């Protein structure tokens, strides 16, 4: 499969990927390297993993990172309750400590978390590690072993090697700088807001009901809006919501009804300051230029 095949397959699944992104994804799949996607919120980083899983007809295993995420929730944990019951039961049967210990630190008492589960699948899954920059720096260190060698070391059991190598997609939107060690192990692509043509293609593939004229207006409007000074710049998901809202309100032309346009803007502007800044006049001016 070449990178343009991948690009075509992704677009048939409704994901319009830029050339940069397609080449990087293609390399990530063929070199079995993790890929790190950075970019603002709402440019479709997480969707890449979902689409990739659909194309390869495999499972998507997702790990959402957050502050305080630790190995027990991400890699594996011992099932303490079962171990305890087992110890109590063994004590009543009069078993010796050594045999009990062997038993309670076996596979049966191991709880798999996403990262361990991902390397033990029969068919290579897509592993999405979402918003890695939210996790603590220590957690990055846990990831290194997995990303470089696709193995997990459990002190009581030994090293578990990957049955199949998952396709690893990491996303980050820059709440903090990631460590060099992590970046070195990944391929990297910065996902930007799509340009006018790409966004039009996305809108057409996701909302085919929108008329050609309106979709051009919508994309033009959103592109213009992004260059305004906003606290929260609308992403692609917001564009799609906006299109759906306009369809629902029965708007056929952006310049047609200022009140309805202003009402639909709630799908694009997500802070009070932004809503106050984009007044009816501003919205009309943008719509007029987008037309």
């Amino acid at each position, binding site marked *: 499969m*070449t*990178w343009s095949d991948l690009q075509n397959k992704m677009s048939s699944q409704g994901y319009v990927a830029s*050339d*940069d992104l397609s*080449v*990087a994804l*293609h*390399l*990530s799949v*063929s*070199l079995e*390297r993790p*890929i*790190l996607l*950075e970019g603002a919120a709402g440019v479709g980083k997480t969707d890449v993993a979902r689409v990739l899983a659909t194309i390869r007809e495999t499972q998507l295993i997702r790990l959402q990172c957050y502050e305080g995420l*630790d190995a027990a929730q991400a890699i594996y944990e011992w099932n*303490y*309750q079962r171990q*305890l019951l087992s110890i109590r039961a063994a004590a009543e049967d009069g078993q010796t400590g050594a045999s009990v210990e062997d038993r309670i630190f076996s596979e049966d008492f191991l709880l798999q978390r996403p990262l361990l589960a991902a390397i033990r699948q029969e068919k290579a899954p897509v592993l999405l590690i979402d918003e890695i920059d939210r996790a603590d720096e220590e957690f990055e260190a846990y990831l290194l072993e997995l990303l470089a060698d696709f193995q997990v070391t459990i002190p009581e059991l030994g090293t578990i090697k990957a049955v199949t190598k998952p396709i690893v997609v990491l996303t980050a939107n*820059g*709440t*903090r*700088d*990631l460590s*060099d060690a992590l*970046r*070195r192990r*990944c*391929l*990297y*692509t*910065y996902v930007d807001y799509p340009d006018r043509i790409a966004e039009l293609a996305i809108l057409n593939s996701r909302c085919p009901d929108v008329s050609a004229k309106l979709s051009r207006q919508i994309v033009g409007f959103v592109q213009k809006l992004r260059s305004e*000074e906003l606290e929260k710049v609308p992403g692609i998901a917001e564009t799609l919501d906006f299109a759906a809202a306009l369809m629902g309100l029965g708007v056929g032309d952006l310049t047609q009804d200022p009140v309805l346009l202003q009402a639909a803007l709630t799908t694009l502007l997500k802070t009070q300051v932004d809503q106050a800044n984009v007044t009816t006049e501003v919205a009309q001016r943008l719509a007029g230029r987008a037309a």
Partner: protein
Amino acid sequence: MSRVTLFAARDPGPAARMSGFLAHLRQNGLRLGVAETELALIALTHVNAALPNQTRRALKAVCTGCKDEADRFDDLFDSFWLNGGKVTQKVVPGPSQTRSDNVHSSRNREGQTGGGDAGQASAPDASSGEAESDGIGKLIATDVVNFLKKDLREIVNSSDIAEAEAIARRLGAALKDRRSRRRREARKGDKIHFRKIIRHSLATGGEPLRLSKKWRPDRTRKIAALCDVSGSMSIYSKVFLAFLAGLMRADPYTDAYLFHTRLVRITEALRDKDALRAVARMSLMADGFAGGSKIGRSIRNFANTYAKRFVNSRTVVLILSDGYDTDPPFEMSNALAQLKKRGCKVIWLNPLKGWRDYTATSRGMVAALPYIDFFSAANTLADLDRLEQELVRL
């Protein structure tokens, strides 16, 4: 007309070219190892390497690691592979290359003149504007720009950096140590968290299995420093750049930026282990150094981009500037108002304030004053040292 670089006949082959390219990237501040060279070669077998754009995309995915690098990569790629037929000195790995690798280290500064040229001939990151608009080619244009540019290596020496580092460390400590009195659960703690242990033990039938601990959480204050390197500031920049270098090296969470007519993030460059090399890399970034100043626009640019990621209510924004702005003053007040909305503290260090009878009369400064939490003089390292007590009170 093909712009593809023509390589010499003695060129040993693609592997050597690739290591030449990686060396070129390394010299321009990308942190790459031997493994990346290998990976880059393997990556090219998976795309059509005869097409420049596919090669560019593939190498971009392999060789870059953050947005700054990705933005600069295209220029670096062009200057090496699409050089209008010219070959840079570093294409064939040889003795000249090993020498130029050592150039930026403090141990081998004698070799700097020869090697420094080699580094700059292929350093398009310092010349985004001028070099590209020149139709003749990058090599010539970049050289001219370099003559106009002051080399920061000359105005900063290692003892200055050591002194500034000591001051910066104390300053950083003064700002940072704001630990809460209330203890919260933590993985590593000094006290046992009984309530958590009892609560967790319910799940295991009353047997406490996990020992929870608690610790006073760190309320770290981060510093984001913006340093003016415009013409009017040039006599003070020695002090300030040493201070920034020290600040960065003392505290890994500090962010540093330079601005003159535009804003450049220098955090990555200053984090280099070798202090002199860090300053050398900074000098590459400060193109337009000692030029005009657009303070308001630079601060607004900061507030709109980097501040969204790095500035919050626990950040102290340190602006090192004389306040002589070529933009209208409302730019400055708007920008600072926007920055203050993020809840940060703004400290403005103005070298002119050290003068006798100084009053903030420049229009930019007057516009800025209402938004500044602390306004102080800073002419020498000693002035910066005295800041410590003031900052604790903030």
